[in-house]
C-alpha cells in the first residue's frame, strides 16, 4: 500500500491517496491537482485568488477592476505583499502612501439588482470612471468572480469598448472562483488568457513590440517572479551583473506596456514554475523563445540559476562573469551564513506552501544544516511532487492539499522545530508551541538570491530561538 492513512482520515478514506511517506526508491507520489473533499477544512483558495492575487495583482501601473460583489475586491485589496514602486499623487506634492496597485480597491460592488439585470453596463461605466479618477493608469485588468461569471457578463466586450474609448490596453480575465480545484487554475487561466490577448494586441498595435534596433542579444524575461517583499531588489542585479538585460519581470512590479515585449526576449528564465511556466511555454511555442527553470533560493540553487543562464548564452565572458558574481556574492554572505548555520544545524523543518517553494527550499534549508521532515503543497501538480520526493529523505511525510486536521496530526507526530507556512495556519500551529514563519509573504524579506538568503536564515533563527517557546514548555 503506497499511500498513508492518517488517523484523522479514517472516516474520509478518499484523502488517503493524497498522503505518502517517501519510500526508498522515491517512486510514489501523492495524487494531486484533484477535486477537494468537501468539508475537509481545506486550506485552498479559489481561481480568482490565483488570477487576481498571484499573477495579475503585482502589475503595478494599472487599475485592477474587480467585477464582483464587494467581498472579492475587499479581500484582495492590498493584502498580498507583492510590492511595487509606481505611485499616484495623493495631493499636490505628496505621493500616496501605498503603490498604485495596492492603494485602492476598484470594484463594481455588484448588488442584487445588478445580478438580476446583468452587470456589463455597470462594469463599462465603472471602468470609464476609474480611468478618469486615475488618469496615470496605463491600462486595466478586469477580473470576474463566481456570480458575475454565472450571470454571463461579457467582460471581453466591455474591455474592447472601453479600451477603444480611452486608448489604453485593457485585459479581461475570467476567473470565477469555482473554476478548477484550487488557485492553480487561476494562474493557468491568467497565463493563457493574457497570452492570447497580448498576441492579438501586438498584432493590432505593432508599435508596442520591441523595435529591432532596441533589441540586444542578451534580453531575458524573469517569469513567475512576483516581487514578494522586494525580492527583485536582490535578484535583478544578479542577472544584470552577468551582462544580460531583464526586459520584463512577469509580473512583480511590472509595467503594463512593457509586458507587450515579453515575446521579444531571447530567453525566459522561470522562477515560479507552477504559476507561470504556462506563459513561458506559450511564448516558446509561438515565438521560439526557449525557457529554463531556475530556483533563486539558497546558494547552490541561485548559483546554478546564474550558471544555467550564462551557459545558455554560451558566451565566455558571461560564463566567466557568472563565476565571479557567484564568488563575490558567496563571500559577501559567508560570515553571516556561518553564524546562522551554527545556530540552525540539525533543526527539523516542515514546509507547507503553494507548490514550488516546497521543492525549492529543501536544498536551501540543507545549506543551513536543517532537515525537512514533512512537505505539503496547496495546489502542487504531479511535476511538483516528483521533484519534492527526489529532494527529501525517504521517510518524509508528503501531503497533497493538506487540511487543518491533517496539519495538526503532522505537527503532533512529526514534531518539527519550525513550520514554514502561511497566515491561516501559523496561528493554529503556534497554539501548539511550534514556531512558524510566513512563507508566502515572508516575515521581513527579501528572502531570494544570495543576500536575501541571510534574511531567510535570520527569520528562521528568530522564529526558533525566541524565548517564548521555552517558557511555554516550562511546568507552571
Amino acid at each position, binding site marked *: 500500500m503506497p499511500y498513508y492513512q492518517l488517523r484523522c482520515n479514517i*472516516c474520509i478514506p478518499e484523502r488517503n491517496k493524497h498522503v505518502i511517506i517517501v519510500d526508498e526508491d522515491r517512486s510514489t507520489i501523492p495524487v494531486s491537482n484533484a*477535486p*477537494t473533499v*468537501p*468539508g*475537509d*477544512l*481545506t*486550506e485552498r483558495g479559489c*481561481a480568482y485568488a490565483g488570477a487576481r492575487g498571484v499573477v495579475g495583482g503585482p502589475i503595478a501601473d494599472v487599475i485592477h477592476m474587480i467585477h464582483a*460583489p*464587494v*467581498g472579492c475586491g*475587499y*479581500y484582495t*485589496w492590498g493584502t498580498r505583499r507583492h510590492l511595487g*514602486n509606481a*505611485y*499616484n*499623487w*495623493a*495631493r*499636490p506634492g505628496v*505621493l500616496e*502612501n501605498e503603490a498604485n496597485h495596492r492603494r*485602492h480597491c476598484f470594484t*463594481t460592488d*455588484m448588488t442584487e439588482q445588478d*445580478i438580476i439585470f446583468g452587470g456589463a453596463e455597470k462594469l463599462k461605466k*465603472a471602468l470609464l*470612471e*476609474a480611468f478618469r*479618477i486615475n*488618469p*496615470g493608469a496605463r491600462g486595466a485588468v478586469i477580473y470576474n*468572480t*463566481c*456570480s458575475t461569471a*454565472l*450571470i454571463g457578463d461579457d467582460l471581453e466586450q466591455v474591455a474592447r469598448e472601453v479600451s477603444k474609448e480611452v486608448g489604453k490596453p485593457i485585459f479581461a480575465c475570467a476567473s470565477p*472562483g*469555482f*473554476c*478548477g480545484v484550487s488557485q492553480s487554475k487561476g494562474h493557468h487561466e491568467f497565463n493563457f488568457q493574457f497570452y492570447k490577448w497580448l498576441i492579438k494586441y501586438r498584432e493590432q498595435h505593432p508599435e508596442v513590440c520591441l523595435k529591432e534596433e532596441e533589441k540586444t542579444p542578451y534580453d531575458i524575461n524573469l517569469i513567475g517572479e512576483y516581487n514578494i517583499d522586494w525580492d527583485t531588489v536582490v535578484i535583478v542585479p544578479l542577472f544584470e551583473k552577468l551582462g544580460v538585460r531583464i526586459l520584463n519581470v512577469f509580473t512583480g512590479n511590472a509595467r503594463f506596456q512593457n509586458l507587450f515585449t515579453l515575446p521579444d526576449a531571447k530567453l525566459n528564465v522561470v522562477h515560479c514554475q507552477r504559476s507561470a511556466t504556462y506563459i513561458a511555454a506559450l511564448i516558446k511555442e509561438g515565438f521560439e523563445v526557449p525557457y529554463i527553470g531556475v530556483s533563486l533560493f539558497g546558494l547552490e540553487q541561485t548559483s546554478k540559476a546564474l550558471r544555467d543562464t550564462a551557459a545558455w548564452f554560451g558566451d565566455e565572458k558571461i560564463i566567466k562573469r557568472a563565476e565571479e558574481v557567484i564568488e563575490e556574492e558567496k563571500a*559577501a554572505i559567508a*560570515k553571516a551564513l556561518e*553564524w546562522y548555520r551554527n545556530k540552525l544545524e540539525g533543526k527539523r523543518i516542515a514546509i507547507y506552501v503553494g507548490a514550488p517553494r516546497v521543492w525549492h527550499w529543501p536544498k536551501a534549508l540543507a545549506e543551513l544544516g536543517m532537515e525537512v521532515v514533512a512537505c505539503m503543497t496547496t495546489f502542487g501538480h504531479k511535476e511538483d511532487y516528483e521533484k519534492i520526493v527526489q529532494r527529501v529523505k525517504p521517510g518524509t511525510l508528503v501531503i497533497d492539499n493538506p487540511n*487543518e486536521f491533517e496539519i*495538526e496530526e503532522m505537527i503532533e507526530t512529526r514534531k518539527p522545530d519550525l513550520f514554514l507556512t502561511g497566515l*491561516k495556519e501559523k*496561528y493554529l500551529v*503556534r*497554539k*501548539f*508551541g*511550534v514556531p512558524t514563519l510566513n512563507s508566502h509573504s515572508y516575515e521581513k524579506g527579501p528572502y531570494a538570491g544570495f*543576500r*536575501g538568503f*541571510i534574511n531567510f536564515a*535570520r527569520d528562521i533563527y528568530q522564529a526558533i530561538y525566541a524565548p517564548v517557546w521555552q517558557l511555554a514548555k516550562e511546568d507552571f
Partner: protein
Amino acid sequence: MINNVKEIPIEGITYKNLKIEKEPLTPEYTPPPPELIPAKNRAVCIDPSRTCMPFGAMWATLGVHRAIPFVQGAQGCTTYVRYTFSRVFREPATIANASFHEDAAVFGGRKNLIRGVRNLVCRYQPELISIVTTCSSEVIGDDINSFLDEAIELMEEEMGPEVRDAVKFVVVNTPSFAGSHVEGYNRAAREFLKTLAKSTGQSTEDIYFIPGFMMPGDIRELKHMMDLMDVSYRILFDISDTLDCPLVGMPNRIPYYPPGGTKVEEFVRAGDARGLFALSPDAGGAGATWLERRFKVPSRAITMPIGVKNTDNLIKAVAEVAERPISEKIRWERGILLDAMADTLHYTMSKRVALCGDPDFVAAATGFVCELGMIPTYILIGTKSRTAEATIREVCEEYGHNPVIMNDSDQFEWEYALKNDIPDVILGHSRCVNISREIQVPLVRYGFPVYDRVGFQREPIIGYRGGERLLARIVNAILDYHYPDDRTHQ
C-alpha cells in the same frame, strides 16, 4: 545600496537598507472630476469600508462553542475570510467549505453540501454547524433546506441517531451581493435564535446580550460590568474565549477547538430570558426584534456602550430590566472616566475629528467624541445603516455640531473630503492608515478591522473603563502629532 556592500551583516537586509525609489505615474496631482467624487454618482466603488455578508455570519458562528461554519460556495469564500480573521485576531479560525468546482456551478451544490456536512461531522463532532450561503450558491439557486434534510437523513443512517442529535444546524442565507458583513451578522443573530430558541414558559433571571462586532476585550469588559451589577447574564456569539486564546503547548487532543463560545443550550434558553439587549442595532438588532415578537422577551437594540452617555444608557436599562441597583463600583468607574476627561479637556476640546467604520461603531464613537468636546467633521458609515445616521444626527444636534454624514458611500469620497478639509485626528480602522499618512493626521484605531497594530483585540473601548482607554488613545495620538515636546508636561 544593499547589493554593493562587501559584507552582509548578521542582521541581514533591514527595511532601512532597502531604498526603493518611488516613481510617480503622472508629473503632478490631478484632482478627480468633481462629479465623480460622491459615490452615488459612480458605478465604481472605490475603497469599500465593508465586506460581504458571509463574513458576518461566520464571525457570529465562531462565537459559539464547538461550532463550525460550513460555507456553501467556492473555496475563496472561506479562505479569504479566514485570512481576515487571522489578521485581526492573530488566532486560527476553523471554517469548512463546500469546495465548489465547475460541476457544482453547473449542477448545483447538493452533493457538496451532503458530503461536506457528513465529513465535517464525522471528523470534528461539532455541536453546531451553520450553513452559510454565498453569491454563487444563491445565484445557482441551491435549495439548502432540502439538501440539509437529505444530509441529516443520510448521516443518521450512517452514524446513528445519537450523532444526529448531537449536532445542531442553523442555515443563514447570506448572498454576498446584498447587504454587507454587518447584515450577515444581523441575519445570523436572527436565524440562530429562530432555529434554536425555545420557551418553556418558565422565565429565567438571565439577561441576554448580542454584542455585534465587539472585540474579545470589549466582551470581557461587558462581563466585568455585569458582574459588578451582580446580574445573571448570557452573551450570545461570545468570541472572547474563541478568538483570543492562550498558547497551550502541544495538545493532547486534536482537532483544536477553542475552549470558549456560547453554548447551544444558552441559545435554547433565550426564549425564557428576562430580557435581551442587542448592543449593535445594525449587527444583531434583528435577533432582538425576533425574540420579542416570538417569545415576548423584552428586547431592545441600543447604541454600543462607547462613552459616558451610551454606557449610562446600558447600565440604566440593565438595572431596570434586572431590577438591580446601579452598583457603587460602577459609579466609581464612571467617575474615573469623568476624571480622565477633565484631566485631558485641553487636549480634546475643539479638536476636529473625522470618523470611519461600521455603523454601530461610528454611531457610538461619535457620541463619545462629542462628550470630549471634539467636533466631528466627516463621518463615513461603512455600510448603509438603518439606525446609525439618526443616532449620529441626534447626538450632534445635542452638542451643536453639523458633520457631513456619508451613509452608503465609500472611503474614496470620505478621504477626498478629508484632503480638502484636514481634521486634527481620525478615528478609523486599519484601512484608514493611508489617508492618515497622506494628510499627516494621527489615526486612532478602533472597531473593525484593526490588523496593522497589535493588542487592539484585547483592549476594551466599551464601558467606562474602555472609554478611559479610548480617551487615552485619542489624547496620546494628539500629543504625538500636534504638541511640541516641551508643552506636554502637565
